[in-house]
């Protein structure tokens, strides 16, 4: 997918929320959906099992209107977190302009976070993308849980953020940190525009 289409003057940003199962990716999208005015959002497509686990993926299109002469739209996706859905994850990841990694702040989920990060890197690489150049931000979700259950952002940075990308504490259920994360990734994606060779 081409991010900027100069002929039709459109900018389309595909942002994928990645992370281990039950880390709160869908919750992020649901919160955003709730904040976007009706006329700006498309139908949120969510395919979830009866136990609220994402089976395929969530998709939320947002129309931002004309900005600086470009019709701008964002497409937010989540991937299913469970290990055995890797084929779907690869599919969703295709053509992503930016990735939000939603990590679970619970101490006992650390290994799942790491595994998912490695899986992200491997899947990007398979598409010929270097995780170092793809716009990426981290979100440490569930910071509202009791502090003896979770790791602090400093500890999580230490464990997960070895590339030094921006990271945000969040409690997606209440919306804390959700838009900060979205703004951060959008900015990084858009700032890459002028470096890319327009088609």
């Amino acid at each position, binding site marked *: 997918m081409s991010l900027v289409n100069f002929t039709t003057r459109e900018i389309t940003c595909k942002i994928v929320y990645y992370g281990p199962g039950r880390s709160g990716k869908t919750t992020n999208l649901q919160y955003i959906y709730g*904040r976007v005015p009706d006329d700006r959002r498309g139908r949120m497509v969510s395919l979830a099992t009866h136990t609220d686990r994402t089976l395929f993926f969530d998709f939320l299109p947002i129309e931002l209107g004309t900005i*600086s002469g470009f019709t701008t739209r964002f497409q937010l996706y989540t991937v299913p977190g469970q290990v055995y859905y890797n084929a779907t994850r690869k599919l969703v990841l295709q053509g992503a302009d930016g990735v939000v990694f939603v990590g679970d702040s619970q101490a006992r989920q650390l290994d799942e976070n790491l595994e998912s990060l490695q899986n992200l890197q491997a899947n990007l690489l398979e598409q010929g993308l270097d995780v170092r150049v793809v716009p990426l931000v981290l979100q440490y979700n569930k910071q509202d849980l009791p502090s003896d259950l979770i790791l602090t952002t400093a500890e999580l940075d230490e464990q997960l953020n070895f590339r030094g990308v921006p990271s945000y504490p969040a409690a997606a259920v209440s919306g804390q940190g959700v838009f900060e994360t979205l703004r951060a990734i*959008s900015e990084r994606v858009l700032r890459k525009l002028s470096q890319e060779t327009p*088609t």
Partner: protein
Amino acid sequence: MSGPLNPRFTFDSFVVGPSNRLAVSAARRVAESPGSVYNPLFIYSASGLGKTHLLLAVGALAASGSAAHVVEYLTLEEFVEAYHAAVAAGQGEAFRHRFEHVDVVLIDDVQFLATRLETQAELLRLITSLTELGHQVVLASDRPPQDIEQLDERLISRFAGGLVVDIGAPELETRLAILRRKAEERGVSFEQAVLSAVAQYEARNVRELLGLLNRLIAFQAVNEGALTPDGARTLLGLEAAVLAQAGVEPAPAAPAPGGGNEFADFLDTVGSALAEQVDTWRRRLQEAVAYWEGHGYRTARLGALLAQETPVGTETAVRTFEQDVERLQELEREMVLLEPGRAGDPVFRDPDRLADAEKVVQAARDGLAPPPGPSASWAFEDFVGTASNQLALTSARAVAEKPGTAYNPLVIVGSTGVGKTHLLHGIGHALSAGPGALVACLSAQDFLDELVQAIERGRLEQWRSRYRRVTAFLLDDMQLLAQKQRSQEELFHLFNALLTQQRQMVFTASAAPRTLDGLDDRLVSRMEGGLVVEIGVPDRELRAAVATRELAGRLGDADPDLAAYLAGRPAASLRAVTGMVQRLATEAEAQGAAADLAFARDLFEGARESAPQPATRPRTSGVVVAATGGVRSREKVIWRWPAVGDRLLEEMI
């Protein structure tokens, strides 16, 4: 004419943003050192973006400080009026002189030059004389020079010779900065959010923006209480406009857990990140325009892109433009060689007319026949190398491998018939194999003849260009140029031109250049500056090889004993060996005998032979090579027919 400059307009009061940074920095440089950079400076922009402000700021800065330059600001209309008044009063000359004492001339509204040819001529004269005096000229217009109707090409190129910059519409941050600055100047304070709300509106120019600010100030003066952002929008009727322009959602009351208007903030982030990118593209275009116009190229194509609201495929456009300019430069360089007089053609300055430029150059190319090349008769591979010519052959190979850098020039000397011409043409073939090679290979006699003909026909320039564009120049029998001053002079200039461009040159001569009489010292020293190699008298091995080759060629097979016998005969040149084979074959055929060793012995030792005649003609290889590759050899042509009854015999050396 204008009186003192309005003190309100200075660089300090000019709000700088990405859209005008280039123009402001250029103007400041000009004001700091008038006449030394960007002269003339041409500033253009749509109305109300600060052209006049910038002009006056240049004036104010130049007039201040220790230098205290004399500055004059006038609009084009004022200029025209003054000029007409002066002409009517018979003071045309005085009008011209009055500017001689002005260090910085600022002319506003230059777009009114459109269709006024007479004023254009006067302005051109003024700019020329002022820039010659080192005085600065700054002009402002609401459109770029090439868009001013019927503007003299010379004026356009003169403007381009300085710097042409534009001022774009202010972007969000600049609009906000302008509003803040102006509010401050007026001593009024507004909430940050109020000014932000007003700045959201994409005003077409600064005046419109200031108009909005004035309304806010007026409202605040008669109403109690501070304005809110929404109040300001409603007051200015911007609600709809801003929505239509930027797609900004008005703040819905959102008592959400996250608090505040998260979506609007998100939109703001996206909006400013995107605006920054668009600015980056715009700046890239502006820089390209300024750069190429500064280099005298027309940039209408890029200008058209800039004029659009959204830059389209900037990088690709700039790259294509640069490639076109590169091609134009190539063509112009070629034109300099082909027809120097036409190299300055404006067609080489307009990338949009690349096709025309190609045609112009092609036409010039067609007008010139390619110079004569090496003859097909002498292949490099056929040249037999032995001890007697080893050095020459090695050098020739080096030249063929690294033309222009190994030995330049290479001068091959040696007595007649030792293979100089063969080697020369062989090198010519090797050099021709290179990509884009154009090899001239001719005898000095042809060089002389062509020169005389060119002089007679008045096509000397074309003749020179014909040789100056070659990638290698090979001249046979250079000694023929002895005493020919004019030819030597031409060769001298050609030599220098080719040497500068590292084009390979190879010469042959009967003897080392310094021993040749009647050759200019400057030519001799240049020849000696390369490598002079001698081909010695052919040794027995070489004679045997040539005899074998000739026998095989004439008789079908080469008897080794016969070849060895012929090689053993005294012969000062390879041509003598060839002559012997030729004579043997002819005699044998005439007598119906086999051309074998016994017959040869009988022919060369038994029969009485007249001694070989010493050469009386100038010592040359005696070979004239036509451009078509055919060979005319003096040895192989019967020049004087013997009387009837005499027998035609003897080789003719």
